[in-house]
């Protein structure tokens, strides 16, 4: 182990550059997958004819594939169909569609867990299906969704490291470059990378706890 040689300013800066890419990919994928996943989850919950069954097939397919395969598919197979996204957006798209499927299941489960009496009370007062969903069911489901959603986002942030397979210059990729030149750097560099991931995800889960406490009624 060579801490002094490994933890130089240049190396740390190179790793931070990688971590910046990690965060960019993660943040974009989190936002997009949350929006799309919520939409899909709500649509599946409403049991619209045609739309809901199609979405069910898409979600089940995505959930049962390895994320690595999806990323490879977007990066290597889509170009053959004329869609060339480049490394960065291949990672974003791959992560987004996979996490979107996961989030949609969390949303659907959250909606279904709201007591049926709530819907009945709202409908009995003359509110429409949409008003009931928006004012009564969705707000209650959201609170229940926070913990599983956050752990899904934490998974997402960690899973950005899979994009190392398509040579996205994110944290793991840059770490590899540093220690590939010198095996005695492996331990210190991996330790530092672990610290980056841990601190970020730990903060994320703390924010979630605060949010959950704030929203509880």
């Amino acid at each position, binding site marked *: 182990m060579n801490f002094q040689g490994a933890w130089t300013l240049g190396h740390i800066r190179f790793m931070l550059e990688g971590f910046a890419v990690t965060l960019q990919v993660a943040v974009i994928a989190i936002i997009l997958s949350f929006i799309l996943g919520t939409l899909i989850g709500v649509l599946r919950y409403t049991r619209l004819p045609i739309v809901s069954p199609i979405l069910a097939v898409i979600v089940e397919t995505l959930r049962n594939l390895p994320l690595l395969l999806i990323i490879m598919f977007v990066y290597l197979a889509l170009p053959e169909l004329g869609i060339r996204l480049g490394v960065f957006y291949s990672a974003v798209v791959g992560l987004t569609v996979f996490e979107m499927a996961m989030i949609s299941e969390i949303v659907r489960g959250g909606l279904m867990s709201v007591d049926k009496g*709530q819907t*009945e009370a709202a409908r*009995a007062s*003359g509110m429409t299906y949409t*008003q009931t969903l928006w004012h009564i069911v969705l707000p*209650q489901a959201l609170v229940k969704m926070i913990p599983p959603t956050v752990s899904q986002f934490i998974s997402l942030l960690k899973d950005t490291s899979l994009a190392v397979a398509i040579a996205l210059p994110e944290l793991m990729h840059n770490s590899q470059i540093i220690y590939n030149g010198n095996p005695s750097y492996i331990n210190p560099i991996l330790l530092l990378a672990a610290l980056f991931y841990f601190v970020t995800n730990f903060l994320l889960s703390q924010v979630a706890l605060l949010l959950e406490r704030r929203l509880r*009624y």
Partner: protein
Amino acid sequence: MITFEKVNKYFGTFHVLKNINLHIETGEVVVIIGPSGSGKSTLLRTINGLETITSGKLIVDGVQVNAKGTDLNKLRRNIGMVFQHFNLYPHKTVLENIILAPMKVLGLSRQEAEKIAREYLEKVGILEKINAYPSQLSGGQQQRVAIARGLAMRPKAMLFDEPTSALDPEMIGEVLDVMKTLAREGMTMVVVTHEMGFAREVADRIIFMDQGEIIEESTPDVFFKNPREERAQMFLKRILSH
């Protein structure tokens, strides 16, 4: 106000409501009693379309509930409902629980809706809890808020589905008192309950159901003193003997 004509309902092959014929006048208080599983709640829930019927004709407030193209939402504004488990919205305060439907369904301004909310909270005796959340209230208080929530739509009739069955014994009285006041003021009420004292005191008419059928229909005096049907006699004996 409410008319059932040869109404039948099946849950799959289970015949829940058997040839129901019933007419309820405006201002009448009708109490439905009977053993559990007799179809009382199902009957009540067909009135505002929470349950569909399989055959027959059901007319509420001049509208045929089971006809195609009936605007159930429009019908439901005129029919308040109180549930066994209160079903208050836990993420909303007492005030928000009450003003939601008047604002969203009737299109009242927040100011108007709040005025009505205060009026009815005062009536059910818990104006001081206006900013509390349901979880901070006792069962009896929650049910009184639920009644105020129903009244705030200024309905033509109120449905009560076992409103005291989920309450601790010491809280049943406060809810029944509110219901008695309503009955005295001339509200049309259909009440499913096991509270025989309430039925005897307040009902204009008792409907006794068993196995999906209306077995007996009479005034409380007649029903409690001289029930005609054997099944009603046995039910009363069981329920009043302890």
